[in-house]
């Protein structure tokens, strides 16, 4: 199992949440560190990538945006399949959007179990005055489902770096635990080595369940 420096990880993170809660702005802010007011860019925001270096570990993030409209709810699974992390965004001024996050959490846990790192994000804290989802309620809920809660403002660029950094660290941890578990679980030979040759027509001496040839 690897924990050493120089490792590199590729993670897929899916963005879920109702339309208009600011998913796109959030991720754009993170990847480009630009929030749209007048900025013109040809970059599109449905699929974004970001490279990070966390304590010597290189992380490649691929961030998948999803369409948040109700009518596309059924498509969720094709997006969150294979995801290492999910960012569930709601608008603190919109109670409904928080309800929607709860639905997603339920579904994700059901479909993917605990493999996936969940982040619940209350966005638009710049509109604190119009808050309709109480901080305590949101944080308690997050804790109850094994998710972390974050407060962000895409507009003011608040909390976004922390959100992603934290998520990455958790995903690295999960990946390493997963790796160790797999290493112990399968008793046969450990790591897949590069350059292991298939010996085509030579009879093999090992038993069939055995390990890779140690050549």
């Amino acid at each position, binding site marked *: 199992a690897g924990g050493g420096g120089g490792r590199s990880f590729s993670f*897929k993170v899916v963005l879920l949440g109702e*339309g208009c809660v600011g*998913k*796109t*702005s959030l*991720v*754009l802010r993170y990847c480009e560190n630009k929030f*749209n007011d*007048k*900025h*013109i*860019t*040809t970059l*599109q*925001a*449905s*699929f974004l*990538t970001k490279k990070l270096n966390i304590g010597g570990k290189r992380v490649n993030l*691929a961030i*998948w*945006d*999803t*369409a*948040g*409209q*109700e*009518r*596309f*709810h*059924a*498509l969720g*699974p*094709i*997006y969150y*399949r*294979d995801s290492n992390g999910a960012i569930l965004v709601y608008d603190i001024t919109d109670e409904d959007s928080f309800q929607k996050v709860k*639905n997603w959490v339920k579904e994700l846990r059901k*479909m993917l179990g605990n493999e996936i790192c969940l982040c619940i994000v209350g966005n638009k804290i710049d509109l604190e005055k119009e808050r309709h989802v109480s901080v305590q309620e949101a944080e308690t809920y997050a804790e109850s489902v094994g998710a972390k809660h974050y407060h962000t403002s895409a507009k003011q660029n608040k909390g976004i770096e922390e959100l992603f950094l934290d998520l990455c660290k958790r995903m690295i941890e999960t990946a390493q635990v997963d790796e160790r578990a797999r290493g112990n*679980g*399968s*008793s*046969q*030979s450990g790591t*897949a*080595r*590069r*350059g*292991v*040759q*298939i*010996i*085509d027509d030579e*009879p*093999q001496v*090992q*038993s*069939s*369940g*055995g390990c*890779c040839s140690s050549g």
Partner: protein
Amino acid sequence: MKFWTVPLKPRDTPLAMAAEETMGSSAGPPELQLPTCSIQVTSEDGAMCIINPLFLAVHSDADWLGHSLPPCQTADAGRKALRPRNGLENLQEPGSTEEGETGLQELPKGAPRKGDVSSASRRRRLLLRSPAQSASVGPPDGPPSPEPPRPETHSPHRASWIEEAPEATAPAPCHPLKKSHSESSLLGDALLPVMELDSLSVSSVEDEAEAHTAAPATPSHRKRHSAVLTSKVLHRISAVGSALSGLLSAERRVSNRVQELAQEPGSYVGGLVQSYVAHVLQGGAARHTSSTEMLQEIRQTISNLKGYLCESSELQAGGEQGDTEEMDLGSVVEASLYKCLLKPLRDCVYAQLLDFHTQDGLQRRLHDHQATMRKQSLAELGVAAGVPDGPALERIQAKLGLLHQAYSPKKKETLLLKVCKMLYEAMNQGAGRAEPFGADDFLPVLIYTLVQGDVVPVQLDVEYMMELMDPGQLQGEGGYYLTTWFGALYHIGNYQPATMVTRHISIEAQRTIHQWQRRRTIHHREGYRRRSQDILYISFQEPFANQKAIPVPFHMTAASVCVACAEKYGIADPASYGLFLVMDSTSRLLSGDSCPQKLRAELLRSRGTSVCFVYKLKGRGELPATGAPALENQRSTYNDPA
């Protein structure tokens, strides 16, 4: 490889110029400059055309220029000569000279015979590499409209080449075409320094990889040389030629090697490839119970061969293999395998896919819902951004046509991304807002666009790509947009206005998606990352006797393993052999659709015992896995232990 090009002054008739070039004289008959019958290239019409050297060869013999025919006749004669282009293939061995290449035989509207695609695409590659190709002859029938390509008559490569030029949006391989687009630089382009040619051409790795036939192709190209080239042209040719010969890259060698192996029935790879292709073409695909199953079997075959080729020594005979090259090796091998397997199978696979979806009703549902959704307003469809207008829709349809024709999932992916880009452009134009669009906006526009055309072919394409693409590629941008397309089609296929607002996924939808999700996950995690652990040792007749290492990915079925075993052990009668699981001195026949690697992993985990796989004659008193005769496709208890 050599070829020649003809410089062209703006608004001069290329025929005249070609003649000048050809005859080493500058005395083109002035009448030929009449625009009515001349063959022109303009950047407006976007056509960029190449003189058919055959035409020149034929007509220089007939010395039509010397007789200064009326221009109309000239063009007419040209048309006559041009029309049976492929019919002339057999005339292309005039036994003429050794040097010089006349590969530029493209006609904008001439349709190659269907079977001629490979040579056509070969020629196209030559074209792509050469910015000097600006010497152009417009189509005889006036300016070509950017009509969508007609698959029946146009080779897909040809069409893409024509279409690519005006857009010049393509990232990589087609860029050089832009150059030849400007009239004013036509002459300059023709004289581009060789170095630039080189730098422009090396980038087209994908084309390189496809150029597997290059070795045999070269001599035949040489033969097509026309005897009338002047020394000036010859000089230029050899300069360009030497630049091109430097392109025989490592990738190409690997690619060539894979092709060679695949064509050798005696080799392991060749045997597998050929028997598999024959098997599918003879209707082997029809036995599957679903389209997904059929495609997955093909994907497994590709993955198996790829895994084998990447790790065997067979490819290393031809060249160096560094650690850094290993990733490249995978994709080169992958592309070569597309050519070996998917190219011959594409049509058959599509026919099968259509069959499946006619039977399961998806085709009809798509048609019906498409009709319903076409009548809806943009608001009803949830579109908030701009949508493609008429001409943009036409361009998109043209791209979709190309996408449909391509056999390589990679090529299809590239085209799919181009369409996405066009959609974003339309969205930006329509909405006039600066903020980049996310999925909330993109998906409705995609759905709107898809229902404007024929969704059924797109459905087949997406399914084809989804299952046949390298699973390792599904995490990137291509994977994201492919997923979005899949989602859009799923939405169309399951569109129900009444239940549209429900919060809950239908049970059926959930099940379908869940299965699919699981499969891809397993593919990705197990199939790709743990490639080296995919080797399964299989004994022959008796446990631990005459073992062979067989690459068996996690999802490879026992039936496929049997195919590989029959090949390895040289079994003449594979039907009477089966794959057995020997454990605790019992022996069970595995059903054809069970997955040995999965079984092994499961048994290791649950019992901690090691098992042995034996390939042997059936019917020796063994216990069938289910207690009943183990038939192909029968689900056994060992089928899916998870």
